[in-house]
């Protein structure tokens, strides 16, 4: 699967754009604030029906305009797929596949598998555990709808249980029987989710370590450790045991909503001990592992968007990364960089189709065409 052609009208700082892309590597170079990340965001829209950065759709309309249009022509198993996303201010977002409008956006998700790697991913390392749970949930939900469904149920049960605890406090009462039914549901769902998560981390770990080792080309041992208050079978017991504490605090202190993923480098937390380049490599390896999962499920090579990945990586790691994404295993790739020097030097030694574009204040010009048919 690859994006052949992208057209934009009034999307962020692009008034009009029509660009034909390489099915190999597409490099976008340009100074700060010229529109490289915006361009990636428009591609992200075509896959996920929303922005990677800004949940308020209308703020992505170019200032002083009333609508935006993103159109992509994809080639999927030699079939053309035309995806249209249009937004008029104060109107519903329109999403079409080959001219037919979707009734539900959820139907579209999954058609165009894509992995975005962005500096914003740093939150995974530096922010609280919620970010890491979001990452795990996001990847598992992509291939397991029952997991997603049970996760939503779990969150509802949790809200209800917390409401009940607050009501107990407000009315100075306590009703074990009423709590029982919520505890039982919470425990059952927690057991299921716990099982899935630990299974997933076990599968992810070797892939993640493989990618980290490849890019770092060294002997740094990285690890992902799933941390949870329970094991898959004892949730009811530990939730029950927390009742008195929960009563006092008026919320549920035990459950898979407290899970975390410990990220370590040579046994120490990467957040404190890892250098900036090591952290960047760590995130890259996580995203690449996610890529592998997505590829296995969708049975096609997803697109991968690498925004600002070279920042903070040394030359050796950059070269390793480009080598990696040039391999047969990966599909169409998008990369941004401040200038073309860096990329040109590396691409000169790797036989892969590629194009280099300069991004300049919402306009794009091709400065190198390394496609084979030319």
């Amino acid at each position, binding site marked *: 699967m690859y994006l052949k052609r992208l057209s934009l009208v009034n999307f962020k700082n692009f008034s009009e754009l029509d660009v034909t892309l390489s099915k190999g590597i597409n490099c976008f170079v340009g100074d700060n604030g010229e529109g490289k990340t915006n361009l990636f965001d428009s591609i992200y829209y075509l896959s996920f029906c929303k922005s990677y950065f800004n949940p308020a759709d209308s703020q992505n309309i170019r200032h002083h305009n009333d609508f935006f249009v993103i159109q992509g022509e994809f080639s999927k198993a030699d079939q053309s797929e035309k995806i249209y996303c249009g937004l008029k201010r104060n109107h519903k977002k329109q999403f079409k596949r080959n001219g037919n409008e979707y009734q539900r956006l959820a139907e579209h998700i999954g058609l165009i598998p894509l992995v975005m790697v962005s500096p914003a991913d740093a939150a995974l390392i530096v922010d609280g555990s919620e970010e890491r749970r979001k990452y795990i949930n996001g990847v598992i939900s992509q291939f397991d709808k029952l997991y997603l469904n049970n996760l939503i149920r779990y969150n509802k049960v949790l809200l209800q249980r917390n409401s*009940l605890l607050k009501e107990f406090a407000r009315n100075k009462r306590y009703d074990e029987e009423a709590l029982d039914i919520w505890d039982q*549901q919470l425990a059952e769902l927690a057991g299921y989710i716990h099982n899935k998560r630990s299974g997933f981390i076990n599968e992810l770990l070797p892939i993640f370590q493989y990618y980290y080792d490849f890019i770092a080309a060294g002997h740094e041992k990285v690890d992902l450790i799933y941390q949870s208050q329970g094991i898959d079978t004892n949730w009811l017991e530990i939730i029950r045991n927390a009742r008195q504490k929960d009563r006092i605090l008026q919320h549920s202190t035990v459950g898979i909503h407290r899970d975390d993923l410990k990220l370590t480098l040579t046994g120490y937390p990467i957040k404190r001990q890892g250098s900036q380049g090591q952290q960047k490599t760590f995130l890259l390896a996580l995203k690449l592992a996610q890529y592998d999962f997505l590829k296995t499920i969708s049975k096609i090579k997803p697109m991968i968007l690498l925004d600002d990945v070279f920042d903070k990586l040394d030359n050796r790691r950059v070269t390793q990364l480009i080598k990696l994404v040039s391999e047969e295993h990966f599909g169409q790739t998008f990369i941004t960089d401040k200038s073309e020097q860096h990329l040109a030097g590396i691409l000169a030694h790797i036989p892969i189709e590629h194009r280099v574009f300069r991004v300049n204040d919402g306009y794009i010009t091709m400065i190198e065409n390394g496609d084979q048919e030319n």
Partner: protein
Amino acid sequence: MNYNQYTSRLLERAVNEFAKLPGIGRKTALRLVLHLLKQPDEDVEIFSHSLTSLKKEIFHCAKCHNISDQEVCSICSNNKRDASLICVVENIRNVMAIEATQQFNGLYHVLGGVISPMDGIGPADLTMDSLVGRVSSEEVKEVILALSATMEGDTTNLFIYRKLGDFDINISTLARGVAIGDELEYTDEITLGRSILHRTPFRSSLNNS
């Protein structure tokens, strides 16, 4: 047009009352009120009387809590119906929906909602005790749980199941699965997965539908 400017306080008051009804905006309310104004006096009298007597004279069935003109509703007092079978539903509309299928010949029990602490609804706000009372005093053989397939519905099922656990009765729940007329490839994975797990013997699918 500005609907806040009425030339009559009486008109405005009537519009306000109609606009309180679900699904009725001020525009529709005004149209309804103007329509009533044009009708003969007797008709409007009948209309308003039907509303006052509805509220004053209607009963909730002492047994099943369904709406009724007598103390015990026409379903509960119909001796052709199977009193050993109780179908537990959330509200009166659910009774009407199941009655419309003409497939059920037992009695009902209207719970009045489902347990939801977020909405301030606990077991005590529902007719839970009265259900337990019926099961312990009547000749009940089976209780069918017909609540919504939501998390709150399931939780309420669980609560009832525990409450009735000590009685020697069958407790069943509605089958959940692929809807009639649904093409399999368009059925969502969760429903389909559940239908596979809770598949039924083919023989039993032959004669009832």
